């Protein structure tokens, strides 16, 4: 449940005061129930409504198990809500056909997973450019695009390495490069600082903040106070996860 959606920068008289950025992503009364037909019904998210605007970092804040990852998955079209709807530029995601939804995920959304989710045994450049394959982009172009993104994140010499050969921080930055390789309108990051050291965390947050200021919708799910400090908007979730029956 949304309990707080505050514009911290606006309250502080920051750059957000110039007016709200155009809304591209919106959750309307979104809820998610797992195993609805069984005796182990789990309510993971209950009627969350929130606009996610470009122009600043948006943090979904809350303790573990409150539904941050679930909400992020729903916003990125990786899952569908049980109730309510997610809209992108006013279009509900559940009205999109499967190919349209795939195209949305491929071209408009970058998703930074909590545990990176890079393919083991595959070179970084191929991992980073994986989402370009269905568009028929040549290997050379994919390699160039991946190389550019890796270079932005300080991994320019590691394109031919596999994830197993990298440190945790490097893997996480490579995952961020994958999320950014298509230059998406929306970037969704799930606990981007939870598994890396402070220096790497600061670097990742700097990139996310820069993207947000560049006009992207950047939504970060986190329970890290350091991330919350960097946010322009904070949506605080209380733990709604509860099991019914069973």
């Amino acid at each position: 449940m949304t309990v707080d959606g505050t514009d911290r920068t606006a309250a502080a008289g920051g750059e957000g005061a110039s007016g709200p950025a155009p809304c591209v992503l919106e959750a309307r009364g979104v809820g998610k129930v797992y195993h609805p037909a069984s005796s182990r019904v789990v309510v993971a998210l209950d009627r969350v409504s929130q606009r996610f605007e470009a122009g600043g970092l948006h943090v979904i804040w809350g303790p573990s198990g409150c539904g941050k990852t679930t909400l992020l998955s729903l916003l990125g079209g990786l899952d569908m809500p049980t109730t309510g709807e997610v809209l992108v530029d006013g279009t509900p995601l559940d009205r999109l056909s499967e190919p349209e939804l795939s195209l949305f995920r491929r071209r408009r959304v970058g998703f930074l997973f909590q545990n990176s989710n890079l393919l083991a045994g595959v070179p970084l450049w191929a991992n980073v450019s994986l989402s370009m394959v269905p568009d028929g982009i040549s290997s050379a172009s994919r390699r160039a695009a991946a190389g550019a993104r890796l270079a932005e994140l300080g991994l320019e010499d590691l394109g031919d390495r596999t994830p197993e050969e990298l440190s945790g921080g490097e893997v996480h930055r490579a995952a961020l490069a994958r999320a950014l390789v298509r230059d998406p309108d929306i970037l969704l990051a799930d606990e981007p600082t939870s598994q890396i050291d402070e220096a790497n965390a600061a670097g990742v947050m700097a990139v996310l903040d820069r993207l947000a200021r560049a006009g992207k919708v950047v939504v970060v799910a986190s329970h890290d106070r350091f991330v919350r400090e960097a946010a322009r908007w904070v949506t605080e979730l209380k733990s709604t996860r509860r099991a019914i029956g069973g």
Partner: protein
Amino acid sequence: MKHWTLLWLALEMAVRHPVRFWATVGCLVAVFTPLLVGMAILEGVRAESIASVDEGPDLLVTGYEYGRNGSVAEALVERCRRLPDVSRARGRIVGRTFLSDRLLTVVGLGRSDGLPVPPEGEAWVGAALAADLKIVAGSYLSLADQGELTLRVGRVLSPRAGLASSRLVMLSLKDAQKLYETPGRVFDLQIWVRPGEDRHARRLLQVAYDLRTTGHPLRIQTKKLVGEYVDRGLSIKGGTFQALYLVALGVLVPALLVTSGFGLSTRRWEIGLMKALGFSVVDVIEMAAVETAAMSVLSTCLSFLLAWCWVRLLEGALVAQLFIAGLEQGSVSEIPARFAPEPVLIVLALAAILLSAGLVYTSYRSATARPVEALR
């Protein structure tokens, strides 16, 4: 271009899991190699049999006693030769006997124009039998059945003479009559009718009619009929082999499906990730189809290669005996085998079907699930 990039990615993803990849290909090869061996030997034996029938007489005449084949008087051979449409006729005795505990076929041939026949007191021995018994031209051979004979080996038949002659002893008709104590009798009569395009069939009928009028109880079989018997006999053997094989396949299919589903959770996770990154269901299915096609083609090629080695280097061990009665290991220099394209295509189709069930279907299931579920 899109399909090309998907194709390469599918191949890269397939070889990323070498254990899964090679275990599946290995299972397919283990299943299909014996089938290709069996089909190749069946076709080889069929081709050799048909060639043998084609080279044989136009009419095969035997006696008919109590509903079974019986011998006929040798005098009938001469009478046949005088029939107007007969170009050539000869009597034959075909029997079996043991020599040093080895079962062998004895063929006694009567003289006929243009056909080679061993002279009296001489035997021609098949290559495999000669090698087995260490017989060379000039050796002496003692045969015993109803009577006893000692013959000089005049010739060892060429190994290329074919499967039928590999364990054969050819004698003159007179010697064979002594061996089986059937003086003045032959077991069958081979008759060649003068060729002549459209008149050939009529001439066959005429000869058959003339033979009927001799008063002897005879069973007359045309070349076509003998060919059909051979073909039917081989079809029954082939059918039996295929039935047995299908039973074995039925047992192996679940194992194969388990193998191709080996690492299913990893595959599901990978598909979930690809879906999360924007791959559509069609993209995922296309990749699974490419992987299926690659493994099908590879396993078919390997099966073919192994089957060829099995036939040529191992003489079709364990499988050839199903098609060639009385065959012992090493008894022929070359197992008759013909690798036709049809069985290879059948194997390719079967491999594709089995893999589709184990791979494309599971990929489809994962691809149609929401990415979050597949990634979980």
